[in-house]
């Protein structure tokens, strides 16, 4: 079987007080093996979902936050689902999202991360040459001047002709080095950041991204929050109020499992969608794709 990295994300514009039931419809091209669930904007209100056997995965609503001494809780990088759960082609994942806040939860998100299983020959699946010399390597793709409501598609990671490239993780930050006597506004902080930082380094607040392969087949059903797909560029401290801040997690790059193998002189694309509002200052997004070059011997 051929495995291919896949994310399914559900974004619920408003979860009413008391919670609600929702569902994700899976693609009809391949089964989906679920390996991780990550919530955003839900916090301790909790969530639940049904397994492929149509059983709820937990007896009550559960969370993916971590208890932390001295604070109420801290978000995690998601709850690992092990062993994996394989959903059928074109299946549905019923979901419960709780709401104990006393007010509607806006833009509740639940990310289901895993892998699609394809029959051999169904999709192009290049892999390593028979004999290979690996070299750790990072490619960088810069998407400049992303406005507060911009959509910039097909930003290209073009693999050089010397070697194939296995993409194993990604990191992204809106950062541009400041130069003395130059402007500190190369990459102002994104709106929504809740730390008092300097002006050159920011946090992805309302940036969503979607990886797309060379035949424009995406690796997710809809764009994913940049800090979930490309990891957390920098950890934030928990809010003093103890309120949910889904980006106050410890640093961890966005891992792609299985890795995404791109042959030399071929491409991987990143679509960028920003939702920070028209008043947000433009930023330069620096994507770093980490992995290894694979030289054929």
């Amino acid at each position, binding site marked *: 079987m051929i495995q291919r990295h896949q994310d399914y994300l559900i974004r619920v514009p408003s979860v009413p007080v008391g919670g609600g039931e929702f569902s994700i419809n899976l693609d009809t091209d391949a089964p989906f093996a679920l390996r991780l669930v990550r919530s955003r904007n839900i916090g301790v209100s909790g969530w639940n979902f049904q397994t492929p056997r149509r059983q709820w995965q937990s007896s009550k609503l559960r969370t993916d936050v971590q208890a932390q001494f001295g604070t109420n809780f801290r978000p995690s990088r998601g709850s690992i689902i092990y062993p994996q759960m394989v959903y059928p082609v074109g299946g549905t994942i019923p979901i419960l999202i709780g709401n104990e806040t006393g007010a509607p939860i806006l833009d509740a998100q639940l990310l289901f991360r895993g892998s699609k299983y394809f029959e051999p020959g169904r999709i192009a699946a290049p*892999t*390593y*040459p*028979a*004999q*290979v*010399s*690996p*070299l*750790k*390597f*990072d*490619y*960088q793709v810069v998407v400049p001047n992303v406005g507060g409501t911009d959509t910039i598609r097909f930003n290209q990671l073009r693999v*050089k002709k010397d070697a194939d490239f296995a993409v*194993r*993780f990604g*990191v992204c*930050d809106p*950062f541009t*080095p*400041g*130069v*003395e*006597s*130059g*402007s*500190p*506004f190369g990459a*102002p*902080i994104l709106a929504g*950041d*809740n*730390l*008092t*930082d*300097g*002006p*050159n*380094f920011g946090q992805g607040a309302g940036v969503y991204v979607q990886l797309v392969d060379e035949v424009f087949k995406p690796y997710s059903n809809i764009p994913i929050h940049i800090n979930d797909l490309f*990891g957390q*560029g*920098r*950890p934030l401290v928990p*809010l003093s*109020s103890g309120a949910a801040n889904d980006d106050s997690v*410890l*640093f961890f*790059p966005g891992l792609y*499992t*299985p*890795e995404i193998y791109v042959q030399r002189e071929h491409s991987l694309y990143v679509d960028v969608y920003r939702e920070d509002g028209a*008043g947000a*200052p433009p930023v330069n997004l*620096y994507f*770093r794709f*980490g992995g*290894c070059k*694979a030289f054929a*011997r």
Partner: protein
Amino acid sequence: MTPYFCEDPKQLYKPQFAYATPAGYRDIPYEVDFEFTIPGDGVMVRQLPHQLDDDEPFLLHAIVFPQIGTALGVENGATPGLCRIWDTRGNPLSEDLVLALGANCQSGFDSINGFGFPVEPAVLCDAGGALLFDFQLSTNAGVASRRLTGSAAVLTFYAAVYGTAGNSATIQLAYVATPNHALTVGVVGSAVTVTLATDGASAISSTFADVQNAINNTPAAFAVLFAYATGDDAQTELVTALSSGALAGGSASTPVLIQGTLLGFKRRKECAE
């Protein structure tokens, strides 16, 4: 027998224990400390060498750069920067200089990746070879700023340039006690004056976010300074008048000492029996 290895290409998942030491060799844990002093002015510095021991090849497994971690952000003392490393055979380990965080290192701040950022797969460095480093650190010159603090919101004004030149910029939030006054921004030289909006009862109706957006969307004002509203109530809390005053804290850059550690193994050839 060479100390170099060839991976099984079919093995897509490679934990460290997959890299077996070749027969006839022994891997001995070894750490290499290095340091460079480079300008903190934001200019790129290229090809800084660090020579390795000439007794045995070194297998590079991880890097820690405590001094250029970005975990704390600019204001809290860390110096974010871009980095590119070249192995001992002249191969760059990144296409260009990339932000050191994530790609090459993490700070060790708050025990995050205190054991170094993994180099995967490991890089075999020739005995006596030199690793080369390119750096471009964001300048540590101070940015002049001024802050207006509310009950649950903060509005910070930053100068448009790094360094002492930003200390000449001034900001004023003026209140005019007339009803239904519009929010306006005026600029004379390096003096920015924001006249706050009022409601029908002549009370201030501009929020912290309103003032931020008004300044940042006025090109003449943005050329002097930049406003940044933070806090849980930045969108709703009303600002107060602020008398005219200069931004402060703009300072010249100073050299930066970069210290790091390479973690890995020396690959020692076993003696013949």
